[in-house]
């Protein structure tokens, strides 16, 4: 085909038109993805979903019995159908989070990078007519020469904390410019958080171990979550001691667990005493004191050992042992150091009867049987966790705090120009583009013009573009 033929030219034009249409579509698509409107819709949706998830008890936090009690069978079925009892792992929530990050990515490319650059690249000066066109502005007249007027203007602006740049009769006054960095820094923090969460999801593991003194338990068997990359080490946790501190009132002040961490060969990797808010970190694994309770009461009945499981009931722990049909023995104890109360209850009686109070090591005769309180076994609950993504998440938190702090800094840019009126009078035009703190800058400009106009004994006019 002849390249200059009409048919060839039509084909080339069609191709160029379709390319430009495609690129127009692509640009529009990216701009929509990065639009403020989409960001607002997604933020509102995420807030609403989070609110629902906060109100509806989630299945990971309460057991099935509690959910049934609260909502009934049909209500629970309805909630499960819509995924409301596991909302934070639901497709809707994850989709919302994903879209927010896509929006973040597009917004960063379209707006944050230029805004970050704007912090380092100086803005262009505006002429008087440009200030009048583009900004909320005030005008006052200069009685003296422009030199004197300029000095007064710059002096007053410096006194108000503005940084001055001048080009002939045009000025730019900046204050709080660092406030422009609030959004880029916060958005960068969000990206870091995403990376940290992904690293956590791929490589972390955690679990809870319940131990009694002398127990040796392995990690892998008790882990609640397993890493997609890497393995849970075959370590064991040995509990050598567990006790608690009490206040004078008898309430628990602190729980302690002394543990040894050993590898597969039995070598000690680390050891220490854990308490609530004082974890133990060994080779990247954190051990936290999560729980503490009385596990079982140890009794000796005519020389035979008996372990009665205990359950927390308010400030005490209680255990129940059926002795005969319709006849129960109930044990009540507040702690390892307190006496144990023994009750008998017959089904024909409304209340149990206290039959003995035994200190640890004491015995009593109940009928033909000698019963000895051999003590109480405690049980400690330890959480273990390995999270390589944590340093990245912590770094993202730092950016969040910094970005949020910068939000509070009002950033103003005031443009000024000295113009000559047709009557050969000198006027100063002061203006600022509308921003987040529009009404604040309006008041500031009015105040400045009022003061500077007063110095010059001239009228001030105020215009809002």
């Amino acid at each position, binding site marked *: 085909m002849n390249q200059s033929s009409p048919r060839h030219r039509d084909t080339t034009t069609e191709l160029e038109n379709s390319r430009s249409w495609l690129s127009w579509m692509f640009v529009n698509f990216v701009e929509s993805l990065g639009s403020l409107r989409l960001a607002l819709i997604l933020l509102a949706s995420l*807030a609403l979903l989070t609110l629902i998830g906060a109100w509806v008890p989630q299945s990971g936090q309460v057991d099935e019995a509690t959910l049934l009690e609260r909502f009934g069978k049909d209500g629970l079925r309805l909630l499960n159908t819509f995924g409301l009892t596991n909302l934070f792992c639901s497709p809707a929530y994850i989709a919302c989070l994903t879209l927010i990050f896509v929006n973040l990515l597009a917004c960063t490319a379209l707006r944050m990078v230029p805004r970050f650059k704007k912090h380092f690249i100086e803005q262009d000066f505006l002429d008087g007519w440009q200030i009048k066109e583009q900004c909320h502005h005030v005008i006052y007249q200069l009685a003296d020469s422009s030199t004197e007027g300029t000095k007064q203007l710059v002096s007053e602006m410096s006194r108000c904390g503005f940084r001055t740049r001048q080009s002939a009769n045009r000025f730019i006054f900046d204050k709080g410019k660092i406030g422009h960095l609030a959004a880029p820094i916060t958005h960068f923090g969000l990206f870091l958080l995403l990376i940290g969460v992904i690293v956590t999801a791929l490589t972390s593991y955690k679990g809870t171990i319940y131990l009694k003194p002398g127990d040796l338990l392995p990690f892998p068997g008790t882990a609640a979550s397993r890493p997609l990359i890497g393995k849970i080490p075959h370590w064991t946790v040995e509990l050598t001691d567990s006790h608690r501190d009490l206040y004078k009132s008898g309430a628990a002040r602190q729980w302690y667990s002394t543990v040894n961490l050993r590898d597969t060969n039995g070598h000690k990797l680390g050891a220490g005493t854990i308490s*609530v808010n004082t974890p133990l970190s060994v080779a990247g694994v954190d051990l936290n004191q*999560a729980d503490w309770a009385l596990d079982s009461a140890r009794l000796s009945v005519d020389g035979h050992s008996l372990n009665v499981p205990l359950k927390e009931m308010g400030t005490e722990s209680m255990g129940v042992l059926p002795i005969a049909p319709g006849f129960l023995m109930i044990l009540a104890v507040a702690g390892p150091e307190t006496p144990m109360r023994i009750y008998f209850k017959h089904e024909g009686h409304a209340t149990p009867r206290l039959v003995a109070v035994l200190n640890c090591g004491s015995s009593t005769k109940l009928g033909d049987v000698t019963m000895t309180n051999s003590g109480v076994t405690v049980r400690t609950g330890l959480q273990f966790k390995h999270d390589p993504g*944590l340093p990245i998440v912590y770094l993202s938190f730092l950016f969040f*705090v910094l970005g949020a702090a910068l939000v509070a800094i009002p950033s103003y840019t005031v443009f000024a120009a000295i113009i000559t009126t047709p009557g050969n009078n000198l006027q100063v035009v002061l203006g600022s583009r509308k921003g987040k703190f529009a009404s604040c800058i309006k008041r500031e400009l009015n105040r400045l013009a009022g003061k500077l106009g007063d110095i010059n004994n001239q009228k001030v006019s105020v215009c809002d573009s």
Partner: protein
Amino acid sequence: MTAELTVTNMAGISSIVAFWIFSASNLVRRAQGLLHKAANAVLMLSFLSITVAIIVRAIVAARFPIANLYESLLLFSWGILAAYLWLSRAYKLQYTGWLAALTVSCIFLYASWLPANQHEIVPLMPALVSGWRAIHVPPLIVSYALLVLGGLFAVRQLWIDNRRSLAAASVAAIAISISSAALGAFPLVDHFALQLWFWGGTVVCLAWIVCAFAANAAAPLSGEAKAELYDEISQRCITIAFPLLTFGIITGALWANHAWGSYWSFDPKESMSLATWLSYAAYLHIRANHNTRADLTSVLAVLGLLLTLLTYLGFTFLGFGGLHSYGQIAT
């Protein structure tokens, strides 16, 4: 009566007296300026008293006094008064002190009606024995105070800007939230009924707000300088509260990781604070759009206020559980 209780009562009584002086100033117009100055002086006395009360309680308890609802309400009142006193100096707003006085009076009255075990200094449970408590909780409480004040000034903005219906709907929603959360502190109240009152009432008020907003969408704002000023004050309160809220949430995550091995577990209180944070993030994004109407941003500030109340009080006292349930009142 202990010294701490005396000073706390002085703070509460001062705030009530200040409110009555502000009310009286509307009747005696000729002496209005003088009465405003007197009321502000009494509010300053209230602020100093509550500061002393918190310090004395800290000395007696040998710890930072922020372990239960009563102590958090003291800090909340301190935050409201501190924020108002700063705003009144920065914006020359002495005549709006009645708003702070009324809010703080209600808080003191409510705190005084709490069960006796709330007023006592009790030992801390193991989870709260940590320096993180003094780092995580105070910024959050002060941020709540600023956000509540920001929301109240937003209501004032709506009222002055001829958006009376919106203002009335906002006040109704706030009253329903406060009443349901406040009643939840008392053990004999049925939590299910309270939740019904809260959600039902809030939904009705929100529908009223939406209808009122739509009805007034075309009507211009009054353009009064005071309305613009209240809008600006509301914005300033929120822009200062937002970093404090962020800091409080993040330090909470750090503490949670330290104590429970997980920095975020979607606990109801955590989720609620996230929802509040997201709503204010949306507010700040809308503010970045320079042509936003003041009535829209004020409505958003009121919605944020409702979420803040739900986060601070609602989720503890409307029968939700979670790791933060130690804020509930023992029966």
